[in-house]
């Protein structure tokens, strides 16, 4: 049973029971969207009545990577790009855990890109929350694989000219069973998608477009956090079920949001167990939790 007192009388904020309040204040800048996603996450935990003892958050490195450290859950702040393979080992060792990978776009799709596609291909039962701020925040605003063309960054001071990654398309093609995108304007939808992902077995991917006022917005003269909300509100178009090849982002254009992929296929573990039963029959020793002595 969960130890969190959802009705915590002294708590002034419904999010408080989920946070390591002794670690506040957090490091995120004013207007940053990461905190909003954490709000949505805690909302999803409340609404889904998740068993918080069995829910683990794994982060990589970067502004979003700090999420793990603020959540009052078993949490692992791993190395840059490697949250997914760490989470893969964790999930395979203890299939009873709900394993959430909470990471940024650079972490997941640049240095961790190989792990992302292979985990999706294998259909490892992970819930990946990708906070996409279109830039490297922690290191000072360098170009990310997701930075849209023509944006200005500290490493492309004259504007980017590489095409940015369309992440829903990438993970869809690699085999993810659940793919959604929202912005930090869509707080209810984000929380709902997270709940759906908690229930879904297999590799789920939720991209949340999130403002980085300090580095991306400022350098691109896109205003502050509030201006980002206005842009998200005005430019977002719900396109549930849209072919992911058509949901790429541009610097100032439409932001296709919604649930793009929701399908079923056996996850890695199911396939593994099935294979061994087929091949080995009675010789197969099926294991649940790999608890060592």
């Amino acid at each position, binding site marked *: 049973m969960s*130890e969190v007192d959802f009705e915590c009388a002294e708590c002034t904020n419904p999010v408080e029971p989920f946070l*390591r309040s*002794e*670690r506040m204040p957090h490091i995120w800048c004013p207007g940053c969207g990461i905190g909003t996603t954490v709000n949505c996450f805690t909302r999803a935990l409340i609404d889904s009545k998740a068993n*918080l*003892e*069995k829910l*683990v958050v*794994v982060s990589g490195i970067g502004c979003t990577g700090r999420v*793990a*450290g603020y959540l*009052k*859950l*078993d*949490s*692992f*702040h*791993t*190395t840059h*790009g*490697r949250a997914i*393979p*760490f*989470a*893969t*080992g*964790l*999930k*395979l*060792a*203890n299939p*009873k*855990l709900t394993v959430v990978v909470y990471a940024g776009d650079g972490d997941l799709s640049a240095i961790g890109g*190989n*792990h992302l596609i*292979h985990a999706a291909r294998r259909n490892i039962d992970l819930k990946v929350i990708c906070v996409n701020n279109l830039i490297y925040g922690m290191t000072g605003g360098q170009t990310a694989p997701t930075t849209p063309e023509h944006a200005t960054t500290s490493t492309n001071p004259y504007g980017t000219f590489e095409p940015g990654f369309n992440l829903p398309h990438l993970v869809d093609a690699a085999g993810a069973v659940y793919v959604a995108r929202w912005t930090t304007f869509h707080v209810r939808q984000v929380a709902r998608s997270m709940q759906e992902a908690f229930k879904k077995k297999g590799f789920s991917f939720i991209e949340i477009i999130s403002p980085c006022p300090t580095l991306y917005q400022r350098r691109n003269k896109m205003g502050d956090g509030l201006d980002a909300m206005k842009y998200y509100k005005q430019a977002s178009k719900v396109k549930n079920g849209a072919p992911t090849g058509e949901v790429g982002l541009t610097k100032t254009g439409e932001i296709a949001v919604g649930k793009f992929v929701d399908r079923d296929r056996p996850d890695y573990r199911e396939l*593994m167990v099935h294979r*061994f039963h087929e091949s*080995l029959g009675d*010789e*197969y*020793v*099926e*294991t649940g*939790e*790999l*608890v*060592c*002595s």
Partner: protein
Amino acid sequence: MKADPAGVLTGVHFLDGDHACCEGALAAGACFAAGYPITPSTEVVERFAARIPKVGGTFIQMEDELASSIAIQGAVWGGAKAFTVTSGPGFSLMMEHIGYAVMTETPCVFVNVQRGGPSTGLPTLPAQSDMMQARWGSHGDYEVIALCPNSPQECFDLTITAFNLSEKYRVPVMFMMDECVGHMTEKVIIPPAEQIEIEPRRKTHKPHDAYKPYECNGDGSLVPEMAHAGEGYKFHVTGLTHDERGYPAMTVAAQQKLVGRLRDKISKAADDLLLVEQDNTADADVVVVTYGITSRVAQRGIDSARAKGLKVGKLRLKIVWPFPDQLIKKLSQRAKAFVVPELNLGQISREVERAAGGVKTVCVPHAGGGVHRPEDILKAIQEASR
């Protein structure tokens, strides 16, 4: 405690070192391995992949060594005993996560079946040129444990020791084989499970609210107790410098305290971590310090020298890191010289030289790809004893 019989293939076998290493891991209770194919190490995980579904556990072939070396750590925090296996180029990629295992105190074993380098080097031929990398390869200051087997039997026996030490000290342990030992086939005796001693995980039994993941117990041990994910402790683990609660702590004091303890828990256990074979060292004029496959070639050189009446001793290192400084120092009071043959251009010989405090140390280098000629070692012994 005793080994779980499930993984122990008791009996007399004819195995190569790679396969014996796998059996050692299974006997030690490893139930999770992640790996990426690389010569000459792959047979270890090939055997594991075939054996583990019948023992109970999981093998996953990851997309690269970066992934393998962190997937095992996820598995450890999920409750498993876990290891990965590689050779030089893959070992280079794993350095990042050796550091992570050191910093987060994640018990796990890295097997490196050494081949010639640098870079792609000699994929199918032996070397011992990753010995310093095993010690210093990840960034930052730290201590690890490294073992060197010289036979398939030792690949079995010392793999168990590697797992036991990793659990005892909560440190990544490097198991430094080489292509020759990995591919040589010899008799391997696997004892019954009840004769195999296994170090249990340092699990915490504290109440949830009293547990701090990086707090020492107060019992003098510098190794904190461990919780697994999913037990309700809601603990945090980070590769950042952290305090006893596991929370990031970006101060000079926190860094000194943590990095100091990570060093001390190994360096202050030097006596427990001394594992050597000594042969006629007490009255030796020349001590041959050797490890891994080279020790078997050196034996011939030593025997020939003795036949010529030279007083030659042998010190074979089974645990190379931490380095047995005190023992070398002690031997240097009597010996006139040390001779260190190794399949590299001089790595462990420098350690011997450092610890020997001025006593002559002769390296017998070999760039790898084969083993020494015993006569070269004999020659070095003869020269050193003059």
